[in-house]
């Protein structure tokens, strides 16, 4: 069971003066239960790529298949849930409940079962039931994004594709969302996250893909990433610079706690700071 992309090329406005090749010969696959990060500069093709996962866009050439079926096939719709980059594009209900219930209702859920699924998606993201009667448009920016995410979770897709889900979330909500997503991967859901905050998410990821001007330029594990990637976590940069200044510290670290132990260790053996 996987999403498979073979030689995917995509052009916006083909055959017009505005033709723009936004994806160039991309091949990759994403397995069951994997936690995948997709990064790259603005305009590099991330959103264009993930819009192929549920058939919203069709390849100009190449193939995108989900569990062996073409991604735009009807049957695939229930398997792949997509969060758009701007939550306003996703919200339309009169109440939060209506909004979150839209997906699962579409897939045939009714009554208690529907209610339970809506509540559990909202609860997973830290909301009380009370939020259900609010208008989704009367929420703060971060709350709106979380409700939009709950709407995607409520359909319980097998592939969860989230375009910038962490953008605009505070630290607490980022932690809540990240552990909710990790939890889902343990149950076999594949989680695919587009983000500009890859350094912050490395410890959760199985693999990372980077795009550059529509080309796939990197695919690998978090450890490969800190070895090769263009922008590193600040903590990694700090360790690298300490090393350059003659401290015997590891420089493949991206977690503050690891940096703390490493620095404590060398400071303790040196006796005092800066000796």
């Amino acid at each position, binding site marked *: 069971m996987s999403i498979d992309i073979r030689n995917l090329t995509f052009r916006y406005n083909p055959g017009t003066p505005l033709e723009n090749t936004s994806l160039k010969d991309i091949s990759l696959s994403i397995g069951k239960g994997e936690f995948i990060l997709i990064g790259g500069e*603005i*305009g590099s093709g991330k959103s264009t790529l993930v819009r192929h996962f549920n058939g919203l866009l069709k390849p100009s050439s190449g193939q995108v298949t989900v569990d062996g079926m073409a991604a735009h096939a009807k049957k695939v719709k229930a398997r792949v849930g997509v969060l758009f980059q701007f939550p306003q594009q996703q919200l339309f209900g009169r109440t939060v409940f209506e909004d979150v219930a839209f997906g699962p209702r579409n897939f045939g859920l009714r009554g208690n079962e529907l209610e339970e699924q809506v509540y559990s998606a909202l609860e997973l993201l830290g909301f009380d039931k009370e939020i259900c009667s609010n208008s989704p448009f009367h929420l703060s*920016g971060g709350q709106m994004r979380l409700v939009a995410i709950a709407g995607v979770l409520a359909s319980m897709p097998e592939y969860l594709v989230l375009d910038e889900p962490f953008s605009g979330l505070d630290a607490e909500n980022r932690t809540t969302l990240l552990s909710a997503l990790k939890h889902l991967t343990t149950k076999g859901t594949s989680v695919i996250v587009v983000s500009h905050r890859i350094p912050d998410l490395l410890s959760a990821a199985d693999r990372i893909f980077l795009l550059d001007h529509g080309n796939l330029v990197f695919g690998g594990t978090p450890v490969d990433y800190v070895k090769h990637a263009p922008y590193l976590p600040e903590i990694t940069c700090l360790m690298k610079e*300490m090393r350059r200044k003659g401290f015997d510290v590891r420089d493949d670290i991206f977690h*503050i706690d690891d940096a*703390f132990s490493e620095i*404590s260790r060398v400071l303790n053996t040196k006796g005092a700071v800066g000796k």
Partner: protein
Amino acid sequence: MTLMIEIQDLLYSYPDGTIALDSVDLHIGKGEFVVIAGRNGSGKSSLVRHMNALLLPSGGCVSVNRLCTLQKKNHPDIRKAIGMVFQGPDSQFIGMTVEEDVAFGPENLGLPPLRIRELVEISLEMMGISELRFHSPRSLSGGQKQKVAIAGVLAMEPGCIVFDEVTSMLDPFSRKDVLDAVKRIHAKGTTVIYVTHRLEETINADRLVIMDSGKVVADASPRDVFLQHDLEMYGIELPPVVALSRMLTRAGFPGIGIALTKDELLEALCP
């Protein structure tokens, strides 16, 4: 210092009864660079929307250049003085092309065409999007749209610009473009109000204001706020370097204190 924005005992409740702001006092001087942070729903956007009279106080008062926002006749002057870049711009574009869209603001101010051309040029340049000038703003990527929205406000050269979470959809390089632009306009005397969840972007600010449940709970220099408050209590994460330096200090290593930047911490660790 001349006062730019004066907020006194501000109370705001939305029509549905949600109290978004409660007893907020905030005075911002001309030329200051003020960062506002706080958890989701703490009232940041509600607060800044009072600064250009998009929202009007339910209690207390807000004035801009001594003009009270409760008086409707003041609104044109207030909106000319305060430019605002909103959270998550998606559908607020007017022009057919990026260039037209960015020119819209200065055209509205009635500036001469040559000056408009110059302002559009400079703003596109500052945002690094000159090559997108003939694109339709609707067919851009999320981050590209964000940059167009910022360029549009820069082109009007208002005395004060409010940025409401404008870097949350930008890559590290684009983020730097924006922070450099902010530094540049601040250096030229523009008042900057900058809402963000990423405190590592606030290190150059004069003041860091923390909101929680509609109230201002801290208002001091970034270093003093980091020293005096446990920001985790307000759902805020310290920048990694600040957090690391605090951990080392609390573990008893001398001479580190609170380092605001990587270089400061390196200097303390290996002088």
